[in-house]
């Protein structure tokens, strides 16, 4: 338990620092790299929460694909390595106030929940969550329908990505 807590504290510090750096460093490409560190830290948090599937998703999708896309997007811009002027605009105080308010509301909501005050001690850990997930994804009484619809959804998104992307590239030579 102590080991878990130590790992959690270290990870939390790393994630928060990285997250603050994402929004505060002036160069976009650096922000993208700090983002990767923050996402990796979240993956560790998922592991600590006994949610191995989400840890894997975090690494595969967020670090593997989203972060790569973000870096691509930054590289597509003309000013990847230039400072982009001041980091704050005149609404920064207002934004900070709103964010703090949201934080307070969410925290208050969580604290009002019974589960937050009497945490289960040594909860039963299911070692087979991923196997169970795999079984329920293909079970008609489980999540078969969302599973297949998600596939169609990805197909539609793929068509869209190619349609919009290809169009942008061709423009003139298109039939």
């Amino acid at each position, binding site marked *: 338990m102590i*080991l*878990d807590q130590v*790992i959690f504290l270290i990870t939390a510090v790393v994630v928060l620092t990285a997250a603050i750096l994402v929004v505060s460093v002036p160069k976009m490409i650096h922000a993208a790299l700090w983002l990767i560190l923050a996402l990796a830290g979240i993956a*560790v948090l998922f*592991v*600590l929460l*006994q949610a*191995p*599937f989400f*840890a*894997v*998703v975090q690494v*595969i*999708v967020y670090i*593997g*694909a*989203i972060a*790569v*896309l973000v870096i*691509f*997007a930054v*590289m*597509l*811009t*003309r000013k*990847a*390595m230039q400072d982009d002027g001041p980091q704050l605009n005149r609404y920064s105080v207002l934004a900070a106030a709103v964010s703090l308010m949201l934080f307070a509301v969410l925290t208050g909501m969580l604290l009002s929940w019974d589960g937050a005050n009497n945490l289960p001690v040594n909860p039963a*850990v299911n*070692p087979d969550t*991923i*196997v*169970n*997930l*795999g*079984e329920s*994804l*293909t*079970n008609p009484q489980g999540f*078969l329908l969302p*599973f*297949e619809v*998600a*596939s*169609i959804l*990805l*197909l539609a*998104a*793929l*068509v869209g*990505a*190619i349609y919009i*992307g*290809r169009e*942008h*590239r061709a423009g003139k030579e298109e039939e």
Partner: protein
Amino acid sequence: MTISWLYIGIFLVVSLGLPAVAIILAGILAPKKPSPEKSIIYECGVDTHGETWVQFKAQYYLIGLVFLIFDIETVFLYPWAVAFDRLGLFAVLEGLLFIGILTGGLVYAWKKGAFEWA
């Protein structure tokens, strides 16, 4: 459970630590005799011109997007593959249907020339 993840953690620390130690040690041990000649970008032949941070082609992004879609497909197939031993024939077929639908997307992408580097 946590123990098995600890191995990954140890690997992570070691893999980050080795290069870090190597770089830091080199920085401490190496003799320092700076000269302007040494600060030039290393290049065989002619000296480089202009910025090294060039703008990428939009094509990269399209490839990236297609990659993202198939990456998310992996997320769905991962638990399916882990549970493969325990699944019946129908469940396996359902997974194949999932793959089949996205193969259609691959055919579309291919035919539309999304992978051509033009």
